[in-house]
C-alpha cells in the first residue's frame, strides 16, 4: 500500500503533471486517454487516503527537499503575473491589488520573517481535509471527464479555427491539484500559494472563450479574489506578529486563541468569504457563468468556492465562542437568506444555480459560525451533499444548454417531453437539493437545530434568516421543476406531439450526470452511516463533541429525531401507487381548461379561440416577481447590508 505521503504527492502533483501534459498534447484521442486515466488514479488515491486517515488518524508531515524555496519563487512569479495582468488589461483594481499584495508579501517574507523560517508541518491532513479531497478528486474528476464531451460540442458550436482545448484542460486539471494543495496545506505560506493558484486558474477558465463579456467577468473574478488574497497576506503578517507562528494548527488550537488573534482570523475568514462569493462579492460567481459549463460546475460544486468555506470551517475551532463566531453566523445566515430571495427573480438557469450556490455556502459559513458540534456536522454534510447535487444540476444544465441553445429557464418549458432522460435527472437532482428526506435537507435540519440551540445572543436573527431563506429556496426550485415539467399531454384525437429533440450525443456526459445523481441519492439513503463513519469523526478530529447519534439508521440530535427511510418508502409508494391503481386510457386525457375556448392542440401546445375566431397559441411564461425580488430593486440593499455586516464584524473584532 502506498504511504500517505506518496498519496498526497499523487493528489497534488498528478493533476499538475497531467495539466502540463495536456498543454502539450493536442490530439483528441490522446487527450481522452490522458484525462481519463489520471482521473481514475485521482479518485483511487483519494479513497486510499481516506482509508489511511480513517485508520491512522491525521497525517502530518513536511516533505523533504527545497520545496520552500520553490514555493516562494512560484508565489512571487504568480503575484507578479497578477500585476502583469493588471497592466496588460489596464485594470486598475487588479493592478493595485496585485501590486499591494506583491509588495506586502515581499515585505513580510523578506523583511519580517527571519530567513530560513520554516513552518512545521507543511501538511496536516485530517478527516475534514480528506472529505474535501474526496469531493475535489471524485467530483472534480467526474466534471473533467464530462468536459471531454462538452468541450467538443462547445467548440463545434463556436466554430473555432484552432482548438483551444489543451489550454482549457491545462487549467481545469491543474485546478484540482491546486485545490488539493489548499486543503492539505498547514503552512500558511504554502496555503497562500495554492490559494493564489486557484485564483489564477479561475481567472483563465472564466475568460476561456475570450469574448468581451468573458474577459470582463474574468477580471472581476480576479480582482475580487485578489481582495481575498490581500486579506490573507495581511492576516498572515498580523498572525505572525501576534503569535510568531504561521501554522494553521496553531491558529485553530481549540479554544486557545488569544483575543489578539481574532483580527487575523477575521481577515482569513474574510478571504474565505471572497472566495465563496459571499455578498457583496457575489458578482464574480454570477459573472463566471459566461464560462463553459464544466468550469461553472467545477467552480461551484467542488472547488474554488468550497476553498472559501473550507478555510472558514477549518478556522472555526479558533474563534469558537467569540464575537467573531457570532458575527460569521449572522453574516452567513444573511447571505443564505438574501441570495435565496434574489434567486426568485432569476430566469437564467445558471444564475439561479449561482445564487443557490452562494446561498448554500452562506449556510455552511453560518454553521461554522454557530460553531457547535451539531453545526459543524451540518456544515460538513452540506459540503458533501451540495457538491454532489450541484454537480448534477450544473452538468445537466450544461447538456440542456447545448441541446436547446438557451440557458433561459423559460426555454426549458416542457423539457420532460423533449429531453426526458436529462430533464428527469435534473428534476430528481432538484428534489434531492430541496426536500426531505434527502441529504441537503437533513443538513439544513441539523443546521437549524444547531442555530436554535446556539449559545450566542444573536441566534434569533440567525434563525430568522435561515427560515426565510429556506422558504425562498422552495420557491425558485419548485418553479424551475415546474417549468421543466409543464407540458401538454397527447390526449385522444390530439395531433402527434412534437418529435423529441435529438438529445446531444456524448454518452460520457450522461454517464457522469447519472453517476453523480446516483451518488447523491445513495448518500442520502446512507446518511446515517455517512454521519457515523465520516462526518462525526471529522468533527471530532477538529475538537467538537459529536452531536449526532445514528443508532438504527435514524439520525438523532439532542433535541430532534429524523428517520429518513420511512420517507423514502412513502415517496416510493407515491410513485408506485398510481401506476398500480389507475389505468389511464388516452381518452381519459382531456384538454386543459381554457374557459371553454380550447381547440385541439397543435404540436406547439394548447391553442384557444380568441378575437375574431382566430386561433391563438397559449403562452405560459413563468412568474419571477422581479419587481419585488429583482436584482434592480434589491441589489443596493443587499450589498449595503452585506458591507454593513462585514464592517460590523471587523469593528467588533478590532474593538
Amino acid at each position, binding site marked *: 500500500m502506498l504511504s500517505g505521503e506518496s498519496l498526497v504527492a499523487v493528489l497534488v502533483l498528478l493533476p499538475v503533471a497531467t495539466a502540463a501534459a495536456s498543454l502539450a498534447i493536442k490530439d483528441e484521442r490522446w487527450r481522452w486517454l490522458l484525462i481519463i486515466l489520471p482521473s481514475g488514479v485521482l479518485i483511487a488515491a483519494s479513497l486510499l487516503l481516506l482509508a489511511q486517515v480513517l485508520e491512522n488518524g491525521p497525517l502530518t508531515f513536511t516533505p523533504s527537499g527545497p520545496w520552500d524555496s520553490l514555493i516562494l519563487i512560484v508565489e512571487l512569479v504568480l503575484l507578479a503575473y497578477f500585476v502583469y495582468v493588471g497592466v496588460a488589461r489596464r485594470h486598475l483594481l487588479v493592478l493595485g491589488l496585485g501590486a499591494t499584495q506583491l509588495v506586502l508579501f515581499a515585505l513580510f517574507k523578506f523583511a519580517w520573517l527571519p530567513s530560513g523560517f520554516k513552518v512545521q508541518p507543511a501538511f496536516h491532513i485530517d478527516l475534514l481535509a480528506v472529505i474535501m479531497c474526496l469531493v475535489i478528486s471524485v467530483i472534480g474528476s467526474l466534471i473533467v471527464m464530462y468536459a471531454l464531451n462538452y468541450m467538443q460540442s462547445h467548440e463545434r458550436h463556436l466554430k473555432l479555427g484552432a482548438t483551444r482545448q489543451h489550454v482549457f484542460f491545462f487549467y481545469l486539471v491543474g485546478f484540482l491539484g491546486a485545490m488539493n494543495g489548499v486543503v492539505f496545506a498547514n503552512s500558511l505560506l504554502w496555503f497562500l500559494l495554492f490559494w493564489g493558484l486557484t485564483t489564477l486558474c479561475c481567472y483563465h477558465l472564466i475568460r476561456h472563450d475570450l469574448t468581451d463579456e468573458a474577459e470582463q467577468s474574468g477580471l472581476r473574478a480576479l480582482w475580487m479574489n485578489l481582495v481575498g488574497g490581500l486579506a490573507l497576506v495581511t492576516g498572515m503578517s498580523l498572525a505572525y506578529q501576534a503569535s510568531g507562528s504561521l501554522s494553521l494548527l496553531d491558529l485553530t488550537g481549540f479554544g486557545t486563541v488569544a483575543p489578539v488573534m481574532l483580527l487575523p482570523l477575521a481577515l482569513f475568514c474574510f478571504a474565505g468569504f471572497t472566495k465563496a462569493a459571499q455578498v457583496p462579492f457575489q458578482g464574480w460567481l454570477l459573472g463566471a457563468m459566461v464560462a463553459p459549463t464544466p468550469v461553472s460546475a467545477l467552480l461551484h460544486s467542488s472547488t474554488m468556492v468550497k476553498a472559501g468555506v473550507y478555510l472558514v470551517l477549518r478556522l472555526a475551532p479558533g474563534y469558537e465562542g467569540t464575537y467573531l463566531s457570532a458575527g460569521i453566523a449572522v453574516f452567513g445566515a444573511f447571505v443564505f437568506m438574501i441570495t435565496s430571495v434574489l434567486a426568485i427573480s432569476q430566469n437564467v438557469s445558471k444564475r439561479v444555480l449561482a445564487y443557490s450556490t452562494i446561498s448554500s455556502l452562506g449556510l455552511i459559513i453560518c454553521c461554522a459560525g454557530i460553531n457547535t458540534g451539531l453545526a459543524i456536522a451540518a456544515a460538513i454534510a452540506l459540503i458533501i451533499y451540495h457538491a454532489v447535487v450541484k454537480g448534477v444540476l450544473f452538468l445537466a444544465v450544461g447538456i440542456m444548454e447545448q441541446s436547446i441553445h438557451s440557458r433561459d429557464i423559460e426555454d426549458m418549458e416542457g423539457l420532460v417531453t423533449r429531453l426526458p432522460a436529462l430533464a428527469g435527472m435534473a428534476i430528481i437532482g432538484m428534489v434531492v437539493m430541496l426536500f426531505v428526506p434527502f441529504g441537503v435537507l437533513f443538513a439544513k435540519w441539523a443546521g437549524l437545530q444547531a442555530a436554535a440551540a446556539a449559545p450566542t445572543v444573536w441566534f434569533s436573527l440567525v434563525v430568522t434568516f435561515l427560515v426565510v431563506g429556506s422558504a425562498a429556496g422552495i420557491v425558485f426550485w419548485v418553479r424551475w421543476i415546474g417549468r421543466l415539467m409543464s407540458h401538454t399531454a397527447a390526449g385522444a384525437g390530439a395531433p402527434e406531439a412534437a418529435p423529441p429533440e435529438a438529445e446531444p450525443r456524448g454518452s460520457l456526459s450522461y454517464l457522469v450526470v447519472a453517476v453523480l445523481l446516483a451518488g447523491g441519492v445513495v448518500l442520502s439513503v446512507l446518511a446515517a452511516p455517512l454521519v457515523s463513519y465520516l462526518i462525526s469523526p471529522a468533527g471530532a478530529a477538529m475538537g467538537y463533541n459529536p452531536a449526532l447519534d445514528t443508532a438504527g439508521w435514524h439520525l438523532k440530535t439532542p433535541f430532534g429525531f429524523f428517520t429518513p427511510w420511512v420517507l423514502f418508502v412513502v415517496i416510493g409508494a407515491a410513485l408506485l401507487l398510481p401506476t398500480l391503481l389507475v389505468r389511464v386510457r388516452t381518452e381519459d386525457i*382531456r*384538454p386543459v*381548461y381554457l374557459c*371553454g*375556448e*380550447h381547440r385541439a392542440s397543435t404540436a406547439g401546445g394548447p391553442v384557444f*379561440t380568441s378575437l375574431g*375566431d382566430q386561433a391563438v397559441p397559449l403562452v405560459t411564461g413563468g412568474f419571477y416577481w422581479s419587481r419585488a425580488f429583482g436584482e434592480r430593486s434589491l441589489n443596493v440593499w443587499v450589498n449595503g447590508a452585506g458591507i454593513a455586516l462585514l464592517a460590523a464584524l471587523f469593528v467588533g473584532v478590532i474593538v
Partner: protein
Amino acid sequence: MGLISKARVKSPWIVHYCCSSCNGCDIEILACLTPYYDVERFGILNIGNPKHADLLVVTGPANRRGSRVLKNLYEQMPDPKLVMAVGACAATGGVFHNCYNILGGVDQAIPVDVYVPGCAARPEAIIDGVVLALDKLSKIK
C-alpha cells in the same frame, strides 16, 4: 340506492354558462345560491370549472359562438354529467326564436337533460329543475 349514488345526488356541483341569455335567468340562478333560496342545502356548489362539475346549467339560446363553447365545456366535464337548460330561450329559443344568430334551444348544441321553463325562470322553478336532475342522476349507474 348505493352509497355512491347517494353521494352523487347529495353533491351536485354546477358550472354555469351564460349562452347569449338576457341575464334574467342568470341572476335567478345566482339568487338560488343566496340566503333566501340557498341551494347549498342540497350540497350544490357553484364550482365554476367544468372539470369539477356534475351539472352544466345553461341559460339563453344557443348562438353560434356560444354553441361552440358549450360543446367544449360539455366535453370537458367528466361523467356522469347532466345538462340543465334554464329559461324559455334555453329550451326553444323563446322570444329570440327569429334572431338570425340563434340556432334555437341549447339542445341544438349538446344533449339536455332537464328543461326549466319561465322567462325568467323563478328560483323555485330552478330548484324544482335541480331536484328533477338529481332524480335522473340517481338512476345513473
